[in-house]
């Protein structure tokens, strides 16, 4: 492996490489495949989309699959990094930190108290939630919320690696979003704080 790497380095530097095994070419080829395909005119989902979103899988009668929202910003590295900037500027970082949580719950794990679907996250941000999550209605426009939503999902590896931010300009924190292990969201969600109080 070391040998292979040196060959690649040499090749990049333009030095004559005695042997450049075909595997190196294949490796380089795949590397170029990993690049994000940037759409320049993508639109986030219509905000009316969040009106129909459910918070629970439980529904009387025959089982109905949960709707899944496609947020086009999750394929757009620029939008995700804008989401990261907003996440910090709007003080999301003050409660959830860089995914580990503190005042608010962690966002890098697989437990989603109020749902992991982009529409669910969108409505959590806009509406707020009763156990401490403030409502950011009128503080952010819909476009900004969709960007933050895309970034929030990148914290737990729900966004493709080539789109997720790779390195922070700040003091090193958790592993970069692009290296965060993707874990499928826990099906039943998390336990809201309110469920922990005796009544």
């Amino acid at each position: 492996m070391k040998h292979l790497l040196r060959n690649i380095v040499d090749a990049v530097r333009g030095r004559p490489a005695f042997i450049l095994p075909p595997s190196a070419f294949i490796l380089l080829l795949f590397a170029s495949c990993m690049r994000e395909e940037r759409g320049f005119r993508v639109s986030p989902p219509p905000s009316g989309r969040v009106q129909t979103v459910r918070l629970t899988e439980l529904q009387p009668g025959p089982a109905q699959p949960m709707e899944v929202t496609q947020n086009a910003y999750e394929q757009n590295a620029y939008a995700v990094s804008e989401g990261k900037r907003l996440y910090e500027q709007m003080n999301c970082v003050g409660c959830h930190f860089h995914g580990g949580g503190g005042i608010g719950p962690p966002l890098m794990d697989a437990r989603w108290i109020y749902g992991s679907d982009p529409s669910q996250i969108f409505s959590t941000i806009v509406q707020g939630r009763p156990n401490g999550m403030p409502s950011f209605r009128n503080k952010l426009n819909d476009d900004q919320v969709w960007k933050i939503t895309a970034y929030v999902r990148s914290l737990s590896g729900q966004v493709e690696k080539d789109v997720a931010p790779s390195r922070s300009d700040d003091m090193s924190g958790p592993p970069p979003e692009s290296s965060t292990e993707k874990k499928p969201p826990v099906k039943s969600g998390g336990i809201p704080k309110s469920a922990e109080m005796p009544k």
Partner: protein
Amino acid sequence: MAVRVLCSVLFPSGVNMSRVRSVVPAVRGLLLFLVVLLSSSACSNANKDGGPSAAPQPKAPQATNLPTGAQSANEQEDGQWLMPAKNYASTRYSGLDQINSDNVKTLKVAWTFSTGVNRGHEAAPLVVGDTMYVVTPYPNILYALDLKNPGSVKWKYEPDPAAAAQGVACCDLVNRGAAFYDGTIFYNTLDAHTVAVDAATGRELWKTQVGDINKGETVTMAPIVVKGKVLVGNSGGEFGVRGWIQALNVGDGKVAWKAYNTGPDTDVLIGADFKPFYAKDQGKDLGVSTWPPDQWKIGGGTVWGWISYDPELNLIYYGSGNPGPWNPDARPGDNKWTCSVIARDADTGAAKWAYQVGPHDLYDWDGINESLLVELPFNGQQRKVLVRPERDGYVYIFDRVTGEVLSAEPFAHLTATKGVDLKTGELAHVEEKKPGTGKVVRDICPAAPGAKDWEPSAFSPKTGLVYIPHQNLCMDFEGVEANYIAGTPYVGANVKMYAGPGDGHRGEFTAWDPVAQRAVWKIEERFPVWSGAVVTAGDVVFYGTMDGFFKAVNARTGEVVWQFKVGSGIIGQPIVYKGPDGREYVAVLSGVGGWSGAVVAGGLDPRDPTGALGYLNAMGDLPQYTTKGGMLYVFSLP
């Protein structure tokens, strides 16, 4: 409910007989008839429900003379525990000596009680007569437990604080306890209300809103009652609130006075009586001029810690919290009166003296720690002093009459400061450890929670030592842009904490000789010692650890004589009391949490070292040692 009220109206505990005699006989007859009718039917019904009886209530003692703890006062130990710090001097010293450093090794669990709450339990139980009172973290339930029938609930009071308050509590959902005065229990709720509850019945007497959660204000401190007023302060230094202390009348909860810790002198209640000892603290409207324009309005200086009272001088003493935001670049200037020790007139709140421990605080070193009021010999003279083991790592000893610093010696590993000049009162900083925007500064010792946080120390007049629970933590700190959005965190810093020098131990328990100004002995602990301390006339010191050990230590030698593993890590304040059976008991709440225990209490993800304001980096292994769950433990000799 209506019936119960009527019953208590008809059977008041102290009936005014002269007035009854003057009533016209016919009316008297009717009244008598009604009384008989109601007492035979309605009142017995109320009893069947298991509700409070209408028969003469077992009244809690009406003590209005709270223990001063002054060494000169020669007070009788009554075996009760009426306020978290035991007495006005905040010494946490119990005069009981049945349990001593020899026999404490046989200590056994007497009884336990589950609070049913899973967050960090920082409170001290109270013992009044034959009742124990326990306040839980949010939702701030108050339990009255019967000591004659150990662990059984006499009544429970639920203030139902707003659930949204959980989102503006910086460091878990803690509450540091209640205070007893004149048949009433007073305490604060997370959503910034102060409540007064009848100690005998659990009936709410009044409830006053003292802060606004939409601005980020919560209240976590334990109030103290001084001369018929309940003293309360706010929390929210990480949310850009403006710090204050206020006095509520015990009778009706109305505000008697309120003093801010930032802003113009009129708001800070600084007047003609204000005589700070050092030139650095003298001047007009320093609460405005030491800030960028209007920054003092969101500048912190909260009062979430401890208040002491000296009845002779009629002064209260407390410290104020950190300035906001943490990033110091946002607030050039001294930022008065944050991180300050302040003495005020107990009746009017007028400031008497102040000393800013941390001008232009750089590291979140709140000045809210306890003030122990003791008498000590200094240069051959007996002085009335105030001992403060500070967050910045020095034990400050003040002349509490004048505010002069008599001593400031380090009790922990320090890299960011070089000592206090006792002539000028200035704290010398190490230049290369000063943080700023976009700059990462490493190896700052102590870390943001300081060498010692809120966890209160104890003083024994027998040994003359101060017993200090504290941390051994350092940190890396990066200043970042801070945006003020009301009701959201206003910090502007990325922080990573880690163990200070040594084998990775993050906590210490130090016995400090305030006269010799040095440590006498020290115990190292794996995790920060986040519990309070208590010391007894039997020369035993008690404290708890975050990995769940409750320990008894020989107060003179520092030898751990006994320990017991409780269910969840301990961050509460132990107390010592005499039960109705005349025996000595030790009680403590277990239930890990708080800022240091947020990784367990809040289920945080330790992969993010910056989580919980950087504490997560130092506490990632805590879940291997403890789980959450609130439980009261009471110990006694077999």
